[in-house]
């Protein structure tokens, strides 16, 4: 009798205990992903849209059972649009034992942290990183944006061949040299190929105090037919404002770096007719694209841009790899990312090559009536 009773009680209280445990215990800790974004500072406009795109992706994943039941958590860090800061925050993230890192925004920051992340073998995905420095390397960095050199080539061809401009000037922000240098180089190369000439290459650093007026004067002074601007959106807008104020009407080309709303709001009518290549089809009719735009608007009460889209894709791509890893795969995340190729993105399927590079098509766009419109599709 006693034995039975004892057994009964053990079972009873075990039951209560287990119930309490489950009731009071914390749920499984989420999978932590580091996010380096330029949320403040000069790149904040782009940076916030990038972050929002990633955030929405994380929310979407968590809403549908997360990574096999575990939630994703985005640990957001602000590099304040500074590559030094980017390094600092990367260190912080690594110290917090994040599984992977998404970001940073600029190629300069990416270059800055490359050694650190490779040493620590942390998978890092740069959704809008385009710098050549990161390309064609088997490492822990996944570059999702077409390399800047390609941009440069294409714009060079556009300027020298299509538009027949022979005297070209370049103005670039040395703060993001990793991004700007390859563009300038390949642009010049292409221009030379087509018999053009880069007459002036103006460098400035946006960290310093600038006088856009003075820069405009410099440009005008070199008397080019066309101008390649490899600058941030605000700088691009301001320079163009000054140019127009000073009466210059030269054809300007811009890298996709400047392609943001800020360009238009700050540029006003000065930016009309600017030509840009963007690795993003804003006119896509794919249902995934339409869906994404609608969801983004519902979530953030404004329209997304290419940064949001790429960040969104980056998170989903990472999620796939994490799912594989959670099933007990011994492989590292970066290998899984490569193996998991191809992926379904917002703009359609994309491949990750063995170097961890993704390249997409470039769409020629211009600004008309305060809106970006695609002129040419590849």
């Amino acid at each position: 009798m006693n034995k039975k009773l004892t057994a009964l009680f053990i079972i009873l209280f075990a039951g209560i205990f287990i119930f309490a445990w489950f009731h009071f215990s914390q749920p499984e800790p989420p999978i932590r992903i580091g996010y380096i974004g330029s949320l403040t500072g000069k790149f904040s406009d782009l940076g916030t849209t990038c972050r929002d795109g990633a955030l929405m992706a994380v929310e979407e994943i968590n809403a549908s059972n997360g990574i096999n039941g575990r939630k994703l958590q985005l640990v957001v860090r602000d590099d304040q649009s500074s590559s030094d800061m980017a390094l600092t925050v990367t260190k912080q993230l690594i110290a917090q034992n994040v599984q992977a890192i998404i970001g940073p925004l600029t190629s300069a920051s990416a270059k800055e942290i490359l050694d650190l992340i490779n040493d620590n073998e942390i998978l890092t995905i740069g959704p809008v990183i385009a710098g050549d420095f990161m390309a064609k390397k088997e490492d822990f960095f996944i570059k999702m944006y077409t390399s800047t050199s390609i941009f440069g080539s294409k714009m060079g061809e556009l300027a020298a061949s299509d538009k027949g401009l022979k005297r070209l000037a370049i103005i670039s922000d040395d703060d993001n040299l990793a991004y700007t240098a390859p563009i300038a180089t390949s642009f010049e190369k292409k221009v030379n190929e087509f018999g053009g000439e880069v007459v002036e290459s103006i460098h400035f650093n946006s960290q310093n105090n600038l006088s856009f007026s003075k820069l405009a004067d410099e440009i005008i002074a070199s008397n080019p037919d066309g101008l390649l601007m490899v600058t941030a959106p605000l700088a691009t807008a301001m320079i163009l404002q000054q140019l127009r104020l000073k009466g210059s009407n030269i054809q300007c080309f811009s890298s996709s770096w400047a392609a943001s709303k800020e360009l238009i709001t700050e540029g006003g009518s000065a930016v009309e007719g600017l030509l840009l290549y963007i690795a993003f089809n804003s006119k896509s009719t794919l249902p995934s694209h339409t869906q994404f735009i609608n969801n983004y608007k519902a979530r953030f009460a404004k329209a997304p841009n290419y940064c949001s889209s790429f960040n969104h894709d980056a998170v989903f791509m990472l999620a796939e790899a994490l799912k594989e890893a959670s099933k007990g795969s011994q492989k590292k995340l970066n290998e899984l990312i490569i193996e998991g190729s191809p992926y379904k993105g917002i703009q359609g399927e994309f491949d990750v090559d063995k170097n961890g590079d993704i390249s997409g098509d470039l769409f020629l766009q211009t600004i008309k009536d305060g809106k970006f419109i695609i002129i040419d599709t590849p």
Partner: protein
Amino acid sequence: MKKNTSLHRRVVFGLVILSLFTASLIFIGSSYLGSQIIDDISQRNMNLAESINIQTWYILKEPTQDLIDVSKYAETNPTKEQLTSRLKALQEFGRIFQKVQVLDDSGHVIAVAPENNDLIGIDLSRQPFFIKAQESNGVQWTDSFISGQTATPMVTISLAFPGGVISGHVNLKVLSEITQVTHPSAKGFISILDKKGIIIGHSNASLTLRGINLLNMPAVKLGLSGNEGTYNSEFNSEQGIASVAQIKGTKWLVLVFQPKDETLGPVHYLRSFALVAVLLITLSGLVAIAYFRKMLFKPIQTLTERTEAVSLGEYDVRIKPEYKEFGALAASFNDMAEAIGIREDEIFHEAQINKAQAEIVRTLTEKTSIRALSKVVHEWVLELTMSEYAFINTIDPIIYDPQTQPEINKSSTKKRICPLTYGNNPIYSGKEISHGMLWDHTLNTEPNFYSNDPEKYFEANSLPEGHISLKNFLSVSATYQTELMGQIVVANSPQGYTHQDLSTIQVIADLLAVAVNRIREHQTLIQSEKNLRDLRNYLANIINSMPSMLIGVSPSGIITQWNLEAEKVTGCSIEEAIGTHLKDVIPHLANEMSRVNIAISTKQKQTNLKQTHTPDYRDIHYEDITIYPLIEDGVEGAVIRVDDVTERVRLEQVMVQSEKMMSVGGLAAGMAHEINNPLAAILGHSHNINRRIFGDLKQNEITAAKCNISLEDVRKYLTERDILKMLNSIQESGQRAATIVSNMLNFSRKSEKSIGSFNLAELLDKTLELASNEYDLKNQYDFRKIEIVRRYEYAIPNVRCEGNEIQQVFLNLLKNGAEAMAEKDYHDDNPKFILRIRKKGSTVEVEIEDNGPGMDEKTRLRIFEPFYTTKKVGKGTGLGLSVSYFIVTDQHNGTMEVESEPGLWTRFTLCFSIEEKDSPQT
């Protein structure tokens, strides 16, 4: 609930239920408490939101107003420098504006503070603030944005005026300052969100710079759409409550958030604590129960053991209580045990007495002897009183006469000393038992008494030599209805005698008296019964030995008595007859009922002689019926005596017939003689005629020659003319007639017997011849037509018999047979006699068989009876066979039997002994 659930289990069960109940209460209570807390906090946070709301509103009111003022100034068309300085004043003084600028209608910058010539003239027509201001009236607020320069959230307010648009970038750092003043809780925060849900002010200032959009919080969505209130929301994966209030004008949102965990933390903690406490208490409770169970059950166990002992018969057990609480239980248990013990003893004692009585009664019913009874009583009184010795004494009523000897006197008592006294030793081995004072006291003074010191009663204070020592003594007399039947004495009980013993033995003594009386009565009764039975039997034998039927009837005709003869005659047994009506048993006596009644009423016997009754139409019985009136048991009735006088009547008839026969015989003899004479003449003359014609006589020749006729011719003529035949026939007939006469003479002349040694075959043949001469006109049968088959054995020895008589017998049989066969219808067959004679042992057997109609069994059995005939009345006397039977069996010591197969044959078998023996004289 099962009947035998363990108490422990129930208690434990109860405890578990209680703890579960408590736990549930705790849960419910904590939930309730939690919700109360949430409500309180919600209320508080709402209030907080409202106050922040108001504060914010006031903060934003100022720059709005300033802008309006400056726009008014701008309308007055001041110079660029004037305007710029005015803007400068506004920007520096207000400190809320980061930058103020005035644009013309096309969106180009006219003036800006702080001053920056680079900015003059640039096209800001695409700026949302410009577009908005131009589209609407009044001050417009743009979406927030993070200033690259100040790294703070900013918002632009703009106002259109005739001539342009004035705009000011408002630094929203102050919002964070407001939100940081008060914290709803340690982990909670206050946030101000712009129209799009982006954080522009936050308790944690760093969050304001990141353009974080909280539109995914339901509270925010609801708040921005105008639904102020408190809602459950999640922030940073933490569940919490969010209170939202919308700032009018800007339509921004104040959000007060508090994580639920933080709020409910203490409650949950308390709950966990309480649950654990309940758990611990329950566990310790169980442990305590288990422990106390032992303690508690020990006394119960003791009780169980003791109770079991009591139930097994130990009444000495007592309980000493360990705990005060069980004192009352122990006391009552002890009382109970004691009381039961006492009662048990009493009951046992009673039971013993009952047993004794029962056995005595049983003995009484089984063996009705005083010896057996005494033995039983002896055993029991010893047992009941635990005595060593006992003495049972009965008084023989024959010797004891209460009248003359009212007191018990030693010389009057017939002693039966029970042989089973202690160890086969009698109480007193002496030859005589002296009075002794003890004995005297017992017999004369106090018949029922006991003494535990009997010495005081001893004569000369000592017992006689050889007497066993007496420690104590008890004596009771057994009296039945004032008559003394006996005495019971017991002695030497180790515990001494008490009043209880005395009453016990008295009970037994009473029963003994009754028993003895009963035995005696019983014996007397048996004797009387025997006498009565003998008398009855004697009487019955007399009645039954009477050859008449004696039937006792009541006046209504119900049979009350029935004797053996009646049973024999009617076939009805005594049991069947008594109680039934006379007419049901003997129908033909029913007519006598009237005579019965006459007899009863006249008290005179009635006789009715020679009543005939025919049970069947062939048999006639004759009865004398005499009726005697009777008074039986006070009830009137009669006895009917029926004498079967059939034999006598028949004998009378036989005698009459014999007389008749004798006279017939005499007549026959006379006739025969008369006939013989002419017959002799016929025979003689016919013989002579024959001789004289056909005889070889000389005289014939001579006379023929004399008459001159040829004798031959005469013979020839006579032969041809059948004269010779006729002559022969005359001779034959005459011869036959002579034979018949002779036979008849022989037949009728009974006294002339010719006993001799005869050959039965010859006699039979002779009879056949005689029979063949019979031609009975009446009977219409012709004996000559019957086939005769003779099967005579060779060399049959003679038998000694009276020839005539045997012939008579044979003739009778043949005649009967012939007559019978005449009545049968022979289809293919013909009537025949088969006659067999054979030697059989020391007898000669004669069989006369015919293939006539035979006879049935009933007839066959009675065929030899005198006057029994199968022929119709008037035909035949029925004497033939009976006489034949008489002759064969009686006269010749032979046997005569008949066998028959109805419809086929009949066979008479006669046996005569061969031995030379004098046949009995008739």
